[in-house]
């Protein structure tokens, strides 16, 4: 019995997970000695789907990759296709895209604060942050008409304008949110009992973070200065820059602080954009068929770097659309940081990277020498049965 491993399975169905994923933690008493992760339960074949639809339809499709950061997917796709077609969205459209993107970051980070607090059994913070998050959801609904999949983008511009009344509503909403965010910063940096669950837990050093290639707030909490909005500005981030928020500690507390402090940057940028909203058209014409070319487009999603590779072939459909969502590089850090911690810390360490399973699930086949590349439908089906057994 002493040599047998006691494995705690978390998932695919588990109260700690809002989406299916499978984690196995070998425990010695309460201490985790090894961890492994298995993903792919919600692979939806969106990349393939995007290749069989024209660009306009594909934009609609990629927006549904993630339910929380839907806007950044659409924006990354639009920016890529516009680059391929050689057009640029008018400045006002770019400003509105950026405003919606930052509002989305606010809603995503507030959602994360709630989820991570819930994992630590701190349900009051969960309820409060989700209540306050309704404010930003209402603002997004006011601008775009939708709470979740805003569909603010079209190829070559945006669908919705921001009028004077909406500016007032947004400013009032931001006022309230900023006050609440100050409270959250106070809670996550001063609540003694909560700090016992976050300080020094799940520490990832800067070296480790760079070796694992983590992105977004997870990397910035470990002191890695990595933010696409600053490293490779897109939209109007050159004219209205955000400040880089970095914490050195690399533990859960730092991840909380980075995300909460980023909210203040979002408020500031949105206010600056609203004060200097460029005049002009909302859309520009974009050709239906796009000459053969390929491009990449990178965007800072709430969770980190979102990467799109788009290849066109002269028709109105993409030859290849490749998406790399930020959860994919961050996922490896969970397995590394989990070892040596208590079982009770696992949900928080997992939530600490703000995982989004269905965004990152994809199928990859590594071709070895002599193996055939094309699979029949029957083989694929068999593979799926074996994989999920």
């Amino acid at each position, binding site marked *: 019995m002493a040599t047998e491993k006691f494995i705690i399975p978390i998932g695919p169905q588990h*109260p*700690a997970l809002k989406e299916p994923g499978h984690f196995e933690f070998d425990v010695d008493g309460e201490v985790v000695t090894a961890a492994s992760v298995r993903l792919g339960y919600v692979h939806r074949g969106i990349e393939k789907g995007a290749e069989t639809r024209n660009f306009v339809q594909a934009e609609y499709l990629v927006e549904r990759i993630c339910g929380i950061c839907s806007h950044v997917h659409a924006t990354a796709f639009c920016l890529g296709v516009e680059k391929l077609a050689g057009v640029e969205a008018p400045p006002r459209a770019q400003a509105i895209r950026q405003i919606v993107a930052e509002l989305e970051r606010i809603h995503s980070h507030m959602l994360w604060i709630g989820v991570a607090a819930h994992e630590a059994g*701190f349900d009051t913070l969960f309820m409060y942050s989700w209540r306050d998050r309704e404010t930003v959801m209402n603002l997004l609904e006011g601008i775009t008409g939708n709470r979740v999949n805003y569909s603010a983008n079209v190829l070559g511009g945006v669908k919705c304008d921001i009028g004077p009344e909406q500016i007032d509503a947004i400013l009032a909403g931001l006022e309230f949110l900023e006050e609440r965010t100050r409270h959250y910063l106070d809670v996550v940096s001063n609540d003694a009992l909560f700090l016992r669950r976050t300080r020094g837990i799940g520490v990832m050093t800067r070296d480790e973070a760079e070796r694992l290639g983590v992105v977004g707030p997870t990397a910035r909490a470990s002191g890695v200065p990595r933010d696409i909005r600053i490293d490779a500005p897109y939209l109007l981030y050159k004219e209205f820059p955000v400040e880089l928020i970095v914490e050195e500690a690399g533990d859960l507390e730092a991840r909380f602080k980075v995300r909460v402090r980023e909210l203040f940057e979002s408020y500031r940028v949105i206010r600056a954009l609203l004060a200097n909203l460029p005049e002009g058209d909302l859309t520009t014409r974009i050709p239906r068929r796009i000459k053969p070319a390929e491009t990449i487009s990178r965007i800072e999603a709430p969770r980190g770097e979102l990467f799109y590779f788009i290849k066109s072939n002269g028709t109105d459909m993409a030859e290849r659309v490749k998406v790399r969502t930020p959860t994919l590089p961050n996922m490896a850090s969970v397995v590394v940081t989990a070892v040596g911690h208590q079982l009770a810390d696992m949900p928080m360490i997992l939530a600490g990277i703000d995982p989004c399973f269905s965004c990152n699930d994809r199928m990859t086949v590594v071709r070895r020498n002599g193996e055939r590349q094309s699979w029949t439908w029957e083989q694929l089906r068999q593979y799926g049965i074996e994989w999920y057994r």
Partner: protein
Amino acid sequence: MSTITALIALLFFPGGLVILLAGMAYEWADRKLVARFQNRIGPRWFQPLADNLKLLAKEEVIPQGVHRGLFVALPVIALSGALTAVLYVPVFGLAPSFSFAGDLIVTIYLLSLLTMCTGLAGANTLNRFSLVGATRTLTQMFSYEAPFLLALLGPALAAGSWQISEIAAYAEDHWLVLAQPIGFIVALIGLMGKLELPPFDAPEAETEIVAGPLTEYSGRGLALFHLGKGVELIVGLTLVSALYLGGVANPIAFFVKTLLLLVVLAGLQSLLARLRIDQTVGLWWRYGAILGLVQFLVLIAWEGLVA
């Protein structure tokens, strides 16, 4: 006491049916208060009753690999332990149904029976979440039990009796919360640990180990455990109010004092994040036990000097 009145006390009032309903009412009050503190609406007044009726009507699934007899018997023993404890405490501000010298110790151990059964129920199954939950339940029990006992012995020592009714009578004209504030705090926090309320809900932390030791329980067994929890909530609140808050001589005093304590408990539940099990044990043995012991020694010294 005649057989008929004893039977009524056992089955209907104050033990038995009425205390089960009262337990559910207190559970509802607790849930509603926490919900309001968290800015939620909370359950309707009959929610715990509806939950338990539904569970009682459902099929009880007995998983493979368990000792069937134990699996069925443990919820019954747990509930009967809690119900027996009711008979020795002054619930609803009435005199205890039964009373003898030393019933304080018996009551405390009857209350522990529920925790004990929960732990055994978890250890009885093969479910890995249950096993971890059972380990945590029993670990937590061993950490809060001694300080809780010490905290309740303080009033006993002051009253010079081990009988709950005599201590309560003594406490009626001595507000012991003022004389023994440390003991009161330890008793209150100990009660939270006993009831596995947040922040001491590591044994049933849903984000880690689903439902802890009761993961495999469904239907009747789960309902009986829930009912036992509700009864234990009332008994615990009654004990602490009777011993520390100036006694519960009449129904009004009982409801005012226990509900006041419940508000405090609900506030603490919503204020605090969940402690890890190692932190719980550390808290109890590093602070709870030491504080309880200090209070106890001071009392003994005081009694020795005065007497």
